[in-house]
């Protein structure tokens, strides 16, 4: 019996990528689920800011149709950015990040799980909601579909880039502004191709080149950025 306990203990200690990913993903989703207010704030912010633009620039149908995809993308970008501090900062403050670093799972696994949970609570709801906002801007059905698809592909890149930046600023002075200076310029390519996809569709061109570039960006980001996030977290825990 002692041998069996020993074996299961060894299996626990070995750790694996899948288990670490699933654990961190489930943990962060549970936390988000238990604080629905915070999670819904991101969505509320997104809807609110997107509704401000027609009031600010005037509600001419033609103008709204043209600026719609860009405005919705900028709002998605800001919403992703504003929810970044929740990713690592609170875990760093109460010491859970150090405990996770001591866990047998490879760091890349639970870091990726946390990033995926961040996307599921910020990027995914926005992508699902975007057709509703697009309707307010008078976009047609095809453009709405392309907009939602581009958001689905593009917002994970925002979460990955943002995770790297927020991990770098852990424990830094002037956190929020510094994070904006680091993250927002890096978001620019995603914004260009994301908004470009819907604009190309709206003006009768193919959205496929933009979507392909976004997809390529997502693959490169998913392959490389978790490594950078791990390096940044290790620096922060030093």
């Amino acid at each position, binding site marked *: 019996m002692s041998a069996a306990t020993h074996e299961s203990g060894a299996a626990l200690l070995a750790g694996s990528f899948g288990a670490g990913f699933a654990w961190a993903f489930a943990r962060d989703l549970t936390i988000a689920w238990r604080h629905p207010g915070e999670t819904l704030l991101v969505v509320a912010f997104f809807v609110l800011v997107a509704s401000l633009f027609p009031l600010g620039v005037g509600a001419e149908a033609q103008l709204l149709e043209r600026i719609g995809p860009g405005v919705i993308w900028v709002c998605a970008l800001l919403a992703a950015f504003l929810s970044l501090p929740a990713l690592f900062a609170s875990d760093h403050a109460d010491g859970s990040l150090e405990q996770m670093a001591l866990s047998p799972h490879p760091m890349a696994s639970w870091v990726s799980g946390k990033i995926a949970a961040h996307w599921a609570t910020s990027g995914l709801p926005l992508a699902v909601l975007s057709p509703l906002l697009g309707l307010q801007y008078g976009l047609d059905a095809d453009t709405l579909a392309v907009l939602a698809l581009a958001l689905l592909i593009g917002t994970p890149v925002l979460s990955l880039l943002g995770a790297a930046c927020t991990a770098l*600023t852990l424990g830094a002075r002037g956190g929020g502004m510094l994070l904006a200076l680091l993250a927002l310029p890096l978001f620019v390519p995603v914004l260009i191709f994301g908004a470009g996809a819907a604009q190309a569709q709206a003006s009768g061109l193919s959205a496929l080149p933009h979507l392909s570039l976004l997809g390529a960006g997502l693959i490169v980001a998913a392959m490389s950025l978790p490594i950078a996030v791990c390096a940044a977290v290790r620096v922060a825990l030093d």
Partner: protein
Amino acid sequence: MNWFYFSSPATFYRLAGAMAPWFFALAAILAGIGLYFGFVVAPTDAQQGEVYRIIFIHVPAAWISMFLYLVMASYGAMSLTFNTRLAAMMARAIAPTGAMFTFVALWTGAFWGRPTWGTYWVWDARITSELVLLFLYLGFIALANAFEDPRRGDRAGAILSLIGVVNLPIIYFSVQWWNTLHQGSSVSLRGTSMHAAMLTGMMVMALAFWMYSIATSLVRVRAVILERERRSAWVRQLR
């Protein structure tokens, strides 16, 4: 010979102090030659007239701004992999000069764009990606100085500079990948579409900016070394 002799801040401090004046002198001489070529030897452009002469500042500044980022990121990679203090200090020393040249490239580009394109600024791919480069430099400087422990700032800045390297090919190839208002490159390894005197002036100016960057980085790294090592015995002896 010990190859790592000058990788110690204490020895490099003296070497940098000895080299900096020479690089300043080289920069001044080369800038003199380059400006002479640019303003006297190079002929007036058939289409743009005299206004094109801003090219002798604009293009070398843009080249050097990208090159310095690459050098800075290489020092960042060196400091992360070999855990050397001096490499991180060099990265910190290069960043302000890189930001300055990025700003100069954008500023002279605006002044060149006004008479030729009729506008100071367009949101085309090359100009936007060069603007992102400026923000990357500023972000690096801000992040490297945001920590109580300078070594943490070194490491965080190094990781950020490595992430930002993606932007360099985007700037470089932007005029080929997108249909931009910014003109394509006139200079390549296979030849050039420029008058020889124009090309000479531009190349000499680029060399001058390069030498100037080395000189200012050496002076700045001396300041960084003094600040970091202020409690060490050899710095106290300098007083």
